[in-house]
């Protein structure tokens, strides 16, 4: 739920409660005032009538309400000792409304010429049910207007206020550390957003710095390892040539040499990855992809025939891409080498190339590999000790560098790698 909608919901709920309470309070306050005013009127009429009655004795006996809406009767004082003025609500039939409508009455006792009289004055009252209906209608109207105003306010005003936030979020969504992107910050007068902008800026700077540092470290470490590795390998090679070794000694030495070679390959791969990531392969040229693949197939033909495998390559079109030729070779050779080393002996490797994609498949009894994990660094299958576990990861890095998409899937005992040129 968006923050705007969230606050709007809360506002609406709070308003509903507040306005309801307000309506009740308002209702009582209003009726209190109305009663007060009506009672004053009744009191006034009573006094006017009593004053008139003192001059006109005919008025002293008027038991019917009729159109003047009052009665005066003589009463026995014994029954009304201690009687106070009383106001009452009652119903009276109204001709115009053809219904009983509420009226307010005032009953009072007064003395004239030593006689006691009871006077009753009637006036029509506010129709309470109508009033409640009105009040309800206007309260709902007020409530709706308020909610609509809040919504409009949110949509126009707050949306504008929140713009720096959404602008930042949209950028963070697509932000990728390895692409060395920069983020633009919208200047804002709001402290919280300034704080957010500053914090994110600092965080990203720190992260980028440590990412750069890490890349640099891998590259430097690989560089530093080159020379000692070279020295160690060469020393062993010289030893092999100079001495008449026993077979056992030779075997031990060979194993040491093989492990150093493995280390050398690993180191070279790490160096290659950091170079790709540090964008140190700038010179691009138009590379004939068909020729690259054919060259790799030629180079790997003995390797494939040693495993009794046949490589079938069908090119629908001539494809050329603007890229670094060494990286193009590495990209395809890692894929093809992977297919040869993981394919079953005696099966076929099928390669297809067209303007949109290159696909390669091999047969293997191994079931499907994990889709994305297959491209992770140091991901190894079948415990292949000669594999550095970096080949596919390197291919993926190269593909990404040139905006290609490399993905993997498994179907009918076949492992497919598809390289899409976008």
């Amino acid at each position, binding site marked *: 739920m968006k923050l705007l909608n969230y606050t709007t919901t809360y506002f609406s709920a709070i308003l509903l409660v507040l306005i309801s309470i307000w309506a009740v309070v308002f209702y009582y306050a209003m009726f209190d005032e109305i009663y007060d005013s009506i009672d004053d009127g009744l009191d006034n009429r009573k006094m006017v009538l009593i004053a008139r009655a003192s001059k006109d004795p005919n008025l002293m006996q008027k038991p019917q309400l009729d159109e003047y809406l009052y009665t005066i009767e003589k009463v026995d004082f014994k029954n009304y000792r201690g009687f106070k003025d009383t106001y009452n609500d009652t119903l009276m039939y109204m001709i115009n409304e053809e219904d009983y409508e509420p009226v307010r009455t005032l009953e009072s006792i007064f003395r004239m010429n030593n006689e006691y009289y009871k006077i009753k004055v009637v006036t029509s009252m506010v129709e309470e049910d109508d009033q409640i209906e009105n009040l309800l209608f206007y309260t709902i109207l007020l409530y709706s207007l308020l909610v609509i105003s809040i919504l409009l306010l949110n949509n126009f005003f707050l949306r504008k206020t929140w713009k720096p936030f959404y602008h930042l979020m949209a950028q963070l969504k697509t932000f990728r550390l390895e692409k060395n992107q920069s983020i633009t910050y919208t200047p804002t007068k709001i402290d919280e957003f300034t704080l957010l902008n500053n914090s994110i800026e600092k965080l990203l700077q720190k992260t980028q710095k440590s990412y750069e540092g890490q890349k640099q470290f891998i590259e430097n470490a690989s560089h530093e390892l080159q020379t000692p590795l070279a020295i160690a390998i*060469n020393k062993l090679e010289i030893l092999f040539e100079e001495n008449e070794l026993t077979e056992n000694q030779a075997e031990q030495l*060979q194993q040491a040499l093989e492990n150093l070679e493995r280390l050398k390959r690993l180191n070279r791969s790490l160096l290659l990855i950091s170079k790709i990531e540090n964008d140190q392969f700038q010179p691009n040229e138009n590379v004939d992809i068909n020729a690259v693949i054919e060259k790799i197939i030629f180079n790997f033909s003995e390797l494939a025939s040693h495993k009794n495998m046949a490589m079938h390559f069908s090119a629908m079109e001539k494809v050329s891409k603007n890229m670094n030729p060494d990286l193009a070779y590495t990209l395809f050779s890692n894929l093809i080498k992977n297919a040869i080393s993981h394919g079953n002996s005696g099966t076929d490797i099928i390669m297809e190339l067209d303007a949109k994609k290159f696909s390669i498949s091999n047969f293997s009894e191994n079931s499907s590999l994990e889709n994305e994990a297959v491209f992770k660094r140091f991901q190894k299958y079948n415990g292949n000790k000669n594999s550095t576990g970096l080949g596919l990861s390197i291919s993926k890095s190269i593909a990404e560098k040139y905006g290609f998409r490399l993905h993997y899937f498994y179907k009918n005992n076949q492992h497919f790698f598809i390289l899409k040129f976008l």
Partner: protein
Amino acid sequence: MKILIVEDEPQMLENMAQTLEAEAHIVESAVSFKEARQRIGVYQYDCILLDIGLPDGSGLELLKIIKNKGLEDGVIIVSAKDSLDDKLNGLNLGADDYLPKPFHMAELRARVKAVLRRRNFEGHTELQFGNVVINTSNRMIFIGKKEVELNRKEYDVLLYLTSNKDRLVNKTALAEHVWGDNIDQADSFDFIYSQIKNLRKKLESHKADIEIKAVYGIGYKLQNK
């Protein structure tokens, strides 16, 4: 042949010098930019192995000095950086070859020999071992004056082994030289065996007096019968 090795890493220098001395070359060395510049100013070499990353200067600068003086010395750039820029710059400046570290001793021998051949015979070059003659300018092989058809890889294997004759050539070094660096992750280098087998058959049938000997299953050695 007189060779200068410019290399600041003493053990690296020792390995290279030892290997090249074993080939009956006269090897001199320089461990710094300054020393190398002095030597180049005074002596003439058939081949200079030039490390790019020297503590007091760049090997590429030395290469410029050599070329500006119009010296005929063959130059092989040796670089630990394995950087494409170094390779391109080096070759553009007139280096004969580029050898990235780490390299195999067999590779060093083969590269040095190739440069020396090109320098001393002005392109028309032949390599002989026993009754086998390799013409490297037109990639032809003769055994006892009779031409033998070899495919590209068989030719490369034979040339490499001949450049390292009487030396044990490790399978890894051979595979990387003939099949390229990217062959490295192959399950094993057993596939080389079938190439060697074919080559042996051809040498045998043409009555060559040299043979390829397998050594401890580690590598191969080309030697006289």
